[in-house]
């Protein structure tokens, strides 16, 4: 195989990986602040994917334009979920939180199954088969748009946490729970807001993802796991880490699909996770563990 093939696969993998990164960013934000592991993360993404598919098939609305309203819907859902269900659980043991979110995930997957059935749904945009050629490099238009949208949204999120007052307040909650309460922050409300932001993030990622893959109800658990692998690889709670982890996993999957067999690709992602956990348990860009 020539160098061109590798280059094409690498670029495709990185672009897909950026969308993975955006999805994982949602999980990372929630874990970094609320310290709750969202085991229904991938399931939330499938909700967004189905919204995008329905909007496209009914009204021919492009997923890239619809990602804003879809993210808004997920934002509201996320806020309600945290305020209503998860807040009482933040001081409970991990396995208890785990079970709560597994139950939420179970309800989401099977509600989608009831509504949409088990068949895969996809979005056929007008540019689905377009591609750009730069020299010997051929890039799918869908993947390029998807990757660009993911970067843009991630940049917005960074800016929000870095420069806005609310973003700073949320970071304060993440750094020191008691300290944040002492200075008068409404931690419970900020937690709900954080979860909402995480949900909006995964909602936007879901809308973008429909450009790249088909959606089935059973996709949820798989992507929950993938998001975990990415976040742990990049470093739990580290936002650039999630993007980096996403790109790394996207690359690994692309090359595993090329050199071995596509069905074995996630095995390599898990292999990377094991390596990272062994040699750098805090993740590539994570802070040292206590």
């Amino acid at each position, binding site marked *: 195989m020539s160098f061109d093939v590798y280059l094409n696969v690498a670029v495709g993998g990185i672009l897909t990986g950026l969308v993975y990164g955006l999805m994982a960013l949602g999980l990372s934000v929630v874990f970094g602040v609320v310290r709750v592991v969202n085991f229904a993360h991938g399931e939330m993404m499938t909700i967004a994917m189905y919204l995008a598919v329905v909007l496209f098939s009914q009204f021919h609305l492009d997923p890239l334009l619809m990602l804003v309203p879809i993210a808004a819907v997920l934002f509201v859902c996320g806020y309600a979920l945290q305020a209503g269900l998860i807040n009482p659980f933040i001081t409970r043991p991990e396995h*208890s939180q785990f*079970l709560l979110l597994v*139950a*939420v995930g179970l*309800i989401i997957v099977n*509600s989608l199954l*009831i509504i949409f059935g088990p068949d895969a749904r996809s979005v056929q945009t007008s540019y689905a088969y377009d591609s750009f050629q730069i020299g010997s490099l051929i890039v799918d238009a869908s993947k390029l748009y998807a990757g660009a949208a993911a970067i843009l949204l991630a940049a917005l999120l960074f800016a929000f946490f870095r420069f806005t007052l609310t973003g700073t307040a949320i970071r304060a909650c993440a750094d020191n729970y008691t300290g944040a309460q002492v200075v008068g922050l409404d931690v419970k409300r900020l937690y709900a807001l954080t979860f909402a932001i995480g949900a909006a993030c995964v909602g936007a990622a879901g809308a973008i993802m429909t450009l790249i893959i088909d959606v089935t109800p059973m996709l949820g658990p798989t992507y929950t*796991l993938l998001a975990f692998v990415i976040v742990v690889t990049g470093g739990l709670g580290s936002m650039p880490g999630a993007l980096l982890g996403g790109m790394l996993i996207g690359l690994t999957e692309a090359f595993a699909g090329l050199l071995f067999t596509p069905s074995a690709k996630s095995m390599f992602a898990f292999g990377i996770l094991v390596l990272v956990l062994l040699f750098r*348990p805090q993740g590539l860009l994570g802070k040292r563990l206590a």
Partner: protein
Amino acid sequence: MIARFFGGPSPRALLLLGALGAMLLVAPFVANDYLLTVLILILYFAYTGQAWNIMMGFAGQLSLGHAIYVGLGAYVAALLFTRYGIAPWIGLLAAIPVTVACGAVIGFLAFRFGVAGVYFAILTIAFAEFARIGFDHLDIVNASAGLFLPVAQYAHNDLWRLRGNPAMFYYVILAATVLAFILSRILMTSRIGYFWLAIREDEIAARAAGIDTFRYKMAAVMISAAVTAFAGVFYAFFYNNLFPEQVFNISRSIEIILGPVIGGVGTLFGPILGAFILTGLAETLNSAMLHFGFDLPGAKQVFYGICLLLVVLALPNGVWPWLARRLGVREGSR
């Protein structure tokens, strides 16, 4: 040992235990085949829940990938049986070292490098997923095409080769569940049980008190893996087919966890009670839907999820501690 074993629970608890035991012993004579299969499923989850509970409930190490031990145990025994005609009980002797070795590798990698809590849980998932995809591409175990055990009508039960009717399988898993319960009881009140308790409650303090935490955490993983191996052997010979996609699936790991968490983590009766509640609920739903001709894929799971949610919200410590108080029995729940 025997005195200590019976010394703990109150007479009332022993009475309840005796009544439950008697009911379970005569069940095959009164239950039809369907009900018996449900009971087998319940006991299977009680058994695996008990095994998981040793690791999480006693030693505080959260495993979300217990399907890997079930799967390895199942594949080792099934492979030996189909290829060389080796009886499952001998196969079990081979399966246990394999699962223990696997548990040792996971434990060693995690505990040596200070991987703990959520990270440890995710590592266990990663290994189970790794095994699932790996076995899916491994030709020696027929890859994704699956491994099948010969099925035939058996005139009489062959306990040695685990070929027979549901009643035989029922007694086998009942005996295993009782043994797992006794083992848990012994472990809980033994020296190692107290070390585990110390590690679970405060690992740093435990280490400061001179407990070799690495060693005892390893012991917890390895014992739990060894106990789970039998569940795999049973699974293989009861269902007669093995697909990596099913055996190693993360849903299997979650199913194992649900029972003890619903029943009460760290208690002896929790895993058993949880298995009865969950499997009972699922099967009741099944037959209710069948009865009303209401066939909507996913509807059962949604209801199941809602019930789960309600239990988790209402009884955070599980059902058993609450029920035990109601019944006026005290079990060494930790």
